[in-house]
């Protein structure tokens, strides 16, 4: 069978193999193909059911009960409590604060990440040749770094007597202990997120820019459109689908932000950097599985809502 890689050669002889009437043959072949396809899909389906489908439904179920960490051995002993967990959530000042924190992550993180990614993509796409590959490699490198490792670097650099304050000191300022200050911790945490993500935005924008046909620019150029006008009237409108994709992607990503605040501050100081995901984790850690599930389901709804709204807002103009 290893010799059959030349397409078409054996087809003529092979077509008559299936017995029975053509109709029945096609039908049974279809059933067989379905069986084979699902066999190929079996491992994925199993993992999907076990780790995505069942957990999502169960999260909804858990969120309506008073399940606690200590109940794990007797899951049937828990009580159905209806919307009690959700009511508790929205009466919990720390949860409301965490929603605001998460909104801040999104409101600052997404535009910054997209802005930097877009600017770099335009710069790298503007016809420079020398060092182009080097720049791309450098700007993309943060994406593949390990967040635990980078968080350590951040802590080292933003320490009270760390590298950053050394620079500030040289300029005559006395730097604060960044991560211990309720007002300054958040910017430092967001900065880590932006540093880790702008490379992804850049690569996606670069791909989008390169898909714009060159003739459009040539025509605009002949009509006397300058660089800025080209950017405003050609690049930005034609890049809209990419912009939409990147913004949804990043918004959904920052909505779920966990690693950066967990590692840098564990949500502190005074909860000023605790995100919704981190709240979920902390409730889980203290055994409040029901409350944690309710919070995680609010997260699912937020993610779904953002995706739908962003597509609605940006689609008609595309």
């Amino acid at each position, binding site marked *: *069978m290893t010799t*059959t*890689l*030349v397409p078409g050669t054996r087809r003529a002889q092979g*077509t008559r193999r299936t017995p029975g009437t053509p109709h029945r043959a096609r039908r049974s072949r279809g059933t067989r*193909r379905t069986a084979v396809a*699902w066999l*190929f*899909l079996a*491992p*994925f*389906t199993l*993992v*999907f059911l076990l780790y*995505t*489908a069942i957990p*999502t439904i*169960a*999260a909804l179920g858990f969120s309506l009960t008073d399940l606690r960490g200590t109940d*794990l051995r007797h*899951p049937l002993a828990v009580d159905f409590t209806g919307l009690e967990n959700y009511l508790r959530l929205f009466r919990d000042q720390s949860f409301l604060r965490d929603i605001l924190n998460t909104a801040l992550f999104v409101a600052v993180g997404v535009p910054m990440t997209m802005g930097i990614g877009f600017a770099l993509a335009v710069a*790298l796409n*503007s*016809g*420079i*040749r020398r060092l182009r590959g080097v720049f791309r*490699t*450098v*700007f*993309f*490198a943060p*994406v*593949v*770094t*390990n*967040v*635990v*490792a980078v968080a*350590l*670097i*951040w802590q080292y*650099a933003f*320490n009270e007597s*760390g*590298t950053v304050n050394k620079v500030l000191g040289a300029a005559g300022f006395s730097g604060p202990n960044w991560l211990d200050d309720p007002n300054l911790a958040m910017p430092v945490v967001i900065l880590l997120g932006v*540093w880790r993500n702008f490379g992804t935005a850049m690569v996606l924008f670069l*791909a989008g820019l*390169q898909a714009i046909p*060159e003739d459009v620019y040539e025509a605009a150029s002949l009509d006397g459109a300058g660089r800025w006008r080209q950017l405003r009237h050609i690049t930005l409108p034609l890049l809209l689908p990419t912009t939409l994709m*990147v913004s949804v992607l990043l918004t*959904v990503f920052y909505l*779920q932000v966990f690693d950066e605040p967990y*590692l840098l501050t564990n949500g502190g100081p005074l909860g000023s950097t605790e995100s919704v995901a981190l709240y979920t*984790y902390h409730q*889980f850690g203290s055994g409040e599985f029901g409350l944690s599930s309710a919070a*995680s*389901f609010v*997260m*699912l709804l937020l*993610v779904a809502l953002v995706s739908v709204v962003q597509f609605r807002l940006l689609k008609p103009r595309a």
Partner: protein
Amino acid sequence: MTAVAALEDAHMTTDRIVLRRRSVSRPLLYGALVLCALLTVLPFIWVISGSLRGLDEIRSDPGAWLPHDVTFDNFVRLFRTEGFGQFRVNSIVVATIVVVGNIVAASAAGYALAKFDFAGKRIAFGAVMAAMMVPFTTVFVTQFVITVDMGLADTLAGIALPGVAMPMSVFIMRQYAMSIPDELLEAARIDGASEFRIFFRIFLPLAGPAVATITIMSFLTSWNNFIWPLIVAQSMSTYTLPVGLAATSQAAAHVTDYGLMLAGAIVVMLPVLVLFLLLQRYFVQGIAGTGMR
């Protein structure tokens, strides 16, 4: 998505772009790019210089940019630290399970989605998309309960299992498989080869680039994964490198032994960075193709 194709075209279009845009003020552009590049690599400079400074030096002058006396003492101490060798082995074992799982299970799923017409295809594809979109935050509590129920808490299998058929890999393979002509598979089918033979002997060898992308992306995801191993691993015997590093640094928070921690950070980051420098194309394709990490 079309992003991959666009990247492939990148090299072809660069020449024309050069012709078009000569008028930018080059020195300004390069100046800005170099500045951005320096800001981007700053953390890498800090980690390297910090890891090469001795314990006393870091204590007396924590914020210095460069070491006075270069020493590898931190790395020596790191490799003598209890558990560190185990963390490395655990990370490698988990990553191996994940990569092999993705090459077989996720490739098979992507192949079926691209090359078979069958009942339930739309549902199956919907499952892939759903698996990509459901937040980890929503599912981790139940995932943990299920892991405990299967007796896999605090085991490497429990850490690896959710990652063995990543939707991202399925998606990459599906996109690639659609570009492979049906005739090649049909010819073997007519010759009487079984579907599994066709998949392993004909399809997978042809899908080399996609397999490479899947291997790299799943390795990256597994190696860098933090929350899930943090939840499942409950003793030092199952800590992966990131969890071990985080645990060690939190335990040592008051000691401020930054040299040791930064040496650890380098050991965790290095394999992926080296792979990235060697195989950049696949990383970029993997992320551009699916838009996720």
